[in-house]
């Protein structure tokens, strides 16, 4: 289920599950993704790190939800828009992240990959491995392990 993460290898070919967040397109290795859910009832966790949006009930299993906007230092999601929950399986444990909307599964080629520009700063630099140059847009490769170990 959990393929050994080659997340640290700068360029990988393969399939990325993509999603949108604050206008950008992100991708994570498709093998990490367990399932995608519409908005869920969240139980907030007082005193938790700000990126922890709460806990969701995934068929009786309690799963932590990470607000990816917060992790990437983006502004909060506008009022009235429901996040989409991507459930990811890391080291046998299910964790989930909240994104704006889900997009396609994309085949990427290592030759299209480029490291993040030096101007990328802050938390985001830690979490974005680089970008795949697709036709007309950039697909940002998210380091899912780091992003979810808030």
């Amino acid at each position, binding site marked *: 289920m959990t393929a050994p993460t080659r997340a640290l290898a700068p360029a990988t070919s393969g399939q990325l599950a993509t999603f949108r967040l604050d206008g950008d397109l992100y991708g994570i290795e498709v093998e990490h993704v367990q399932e995608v859910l519409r908005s869920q*009832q969240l*139980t*907030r*966790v*007082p*005193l*938790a*790190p700000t990126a*922890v949006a*709460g*806990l*969701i*009930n995934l*068929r*009786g*299993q*309690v*799963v*932590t939800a990470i607000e990816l906007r917060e992790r990437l230092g983006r502004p909060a999601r506008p009022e009235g828009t429901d996040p989409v929950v991507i459930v990811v399986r890391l080291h046998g*444990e299910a*964790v989930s992240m909240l994104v704006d909307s889900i997009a396609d599964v994309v085949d990427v080629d290592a030759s299209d990959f480029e490291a993040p520009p030096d101007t990328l700063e802050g938390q985001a630099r830690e979490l974005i491995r680089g970008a795949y140059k697709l036709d007309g847009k950039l697909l940002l490769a998210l380091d899912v392990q780091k992003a979810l*170990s*808030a």
Partner: protein
Amino acid sequence: MDGLDDIVEEFLVESHENLDQLDSDLVALEQDPNSRERLSSIFRTIHTIKGTSGFLAFNRLEEVTHVGENMLSRLRDGELALTPTRTSVLLQMVDTVRSLLTSIEASGGEGSVDVSAVVAAISAAMEDTPAAPVAEPAPAAQAPAAAKAPAKRAAKAPAAATAKAPAKAAAAKAPAKAPAKRASRAKAAPAPVAEELSDVLQDELQTDLPAEPLTPAPTVEEHPVPEPAATDHPEAEATTDAAGGQARRAVADSTIRVDVDLLDELMLLVGELVLTRNQIVQNVARQTDTDLIRASQRLNLIASELQEGVMKTRMQPIDHIWSKLPRVVRDLGLALKKSIRLEMEGRETELDKTLLEAVKDPLTHLVRNSVDHGIETPEDRKKAGKPTEGVLTLRARHESGQVVVEVADDGAGIDPAKLGAKAVQRGLLTADALSRMSPADILQLIFLPGFSTAAAVTNVSGRGVGMDVVKTNIESIGGTIEVESDPGVGTVCRLRIPLTLAIVPALTVECASDRYAIPQISLQELVSLDAEKAANAVEEVGGAPVYRLRGELLPLVRLTDVLGLTSERHDGHVVIAVLRSEGRRFGLVVDRVINTEEIVVKAVGGQLKQIGLYSGATVLGDGTVALILDVQALARRALRTETADRQEARAGVLQAAAVETDRQRMLLAAIGGGRRVAIPLDTVTRLEQVRTESVEKVGNREVVQYRGAILPMVRLDRHLGAYGESDREVLEVIVYADHGRSVAIVVEEILDIVDGEAAVRSDIDDMGLLGSAVLGDKVTELLDVRAAILAADPAFYSSPTPTTPSGVPTALLEV
């Protein structure tokens, strides 16, 4: 298995498993005679059986396995080569072992199974000239018979025939009797008639065990060694063997080994099922479709039974860990030259396997401690006027959803004074702090890290590690430990362990519109104050909110403050959950109490564990996730140690009262005019408050309606001739219930609960009093409860007819 003790039963199950393995190993070995590995494995199996049989005094079994082991060890070491003859005798040995086991299982003894033939055969096979496998004519002739399949099939018919004959003829023979009994018990044979039985046996023989009777029969006949019981032997063998098929099902096949992980998985799934069931039942309750309702009721029932069943699979009697203790006590007793009798009560008390494992070491430690430090040497015991033989008692029982395990000894006990002095000497606390502690509280010092009371360090215990580790271990599984001791009389260590870890009873509360679960084990009582009362009752000590709980200051912690939230309760009501953690008591202020329910504990992710306030999360009946509060962490975070110390010292007084059963706990109450009375706490069922306007008159007696019944009242101030304020709005009432009747005793104020023994009594008497005593530095009158009750209800003791609902809960009382 009646009549067999657990060790034998376990031995049988294990040996049967091993033997099945052995059969295939031996056959495989014949194909590959040089496999050291296989030989070693066979050797180990036989060695194990030999060892255990020696231990259990099954001499013939030991004899057979012993020669077998000899041969195997020589085969393993390469001194002998494996020939078909040797394989055969080994297989024959396996069969004999099986017969013996069958007999043991059926009758508890080795029966009449003859082993001399096999022993002789094995010995003879060992004497064969090594490295000359096909040299001797007899074994050579026999070899194909044992090894080749066609020969086996051919031999089946005669074997079955022999089985039928002796079973008919020798119904009275011991080996046949045993299987008859077994067979009828196993419900395979309708009646234990020999003829019918023989048919069953024959079937068994042909279907289940075709090869087994083969090897002994031809081998014995063909073997050059003279065989005295040659004619009888195969018959007996065949019958027992055939019956073995049935008997084995009784022990080996009636139990299966299941991976604990699988059980855990099942437990999880059942937990989910129960939650889903709750959701469905809640939804269906709003429907009108009767079929659906009926189905949901069935689902409800089945899910509950399933939950119970799965929980049961994980339950084991505590005897599993106790059974090792007699040996520990005996050995230790011998080493220390003490004579100790171990008594066990409630050994069938069951608890979850995981918990059982977790309790094993702490329990062993406590037992060793009792033997080493608790029970005195025979000389000392004689001097103290006790029997020289010390008694160590283990008790286990279920009590309100928990398992209580006690380790009690009738030894020297722990002297609080010595203990306290030691603690001061070690710098664990100051003399001043010690002076404020109650004896019972001092006893709990033995759980401090690095504390040992042993005068001499022995290799058994007394190295200063132990009790704190025991405490930590017990607490890590959600249990508690307490110790009580009477110097000169003995010590009792009491463990309280939850039945299971996976499902715990919890109180669900609401705070800032979120729900949280608080494990019941730390909950002591609930206090609800309306706005008017709360305004006065919640006071402040230097800015820290406190509540006077029966005269004692209870520090209050607002859950909203701890969690950094804002309360959404604005009507001034205060709901306090009185919690206890590590000897500290505090009140957790929540917005409201929802209910109590059984919750399934789920682990939370690493990010949330680090917060250190939540021990997990759970899914509530309606599907929402609720966090489970970690009461210990909450206490540590919210209470400064200083207040906690004071708290502990005060709580110790109460605890002492609760713990010492022979001392009497007293409820102190003011009755006006500065007079105080003490009422034995065991005559108090409940404390209530009654509004004055609800008091009505029946004749010249005052009564009050209480829980749907009429409660006669006695005003203690009038009864005892004191002058209390009579114009109070709310009356403090002590309810006493017995045999379904209740009375209410009205006092001015409930002051405290104290330990009666510390008091100095005098017999200055007055009407309605038993005497007076100094309790809490003040002269206090001891109430003659009987007289007071009779004043309220003259018929109280005479008539057993229930007038009030029985089972009035005592939740309000601190225990």
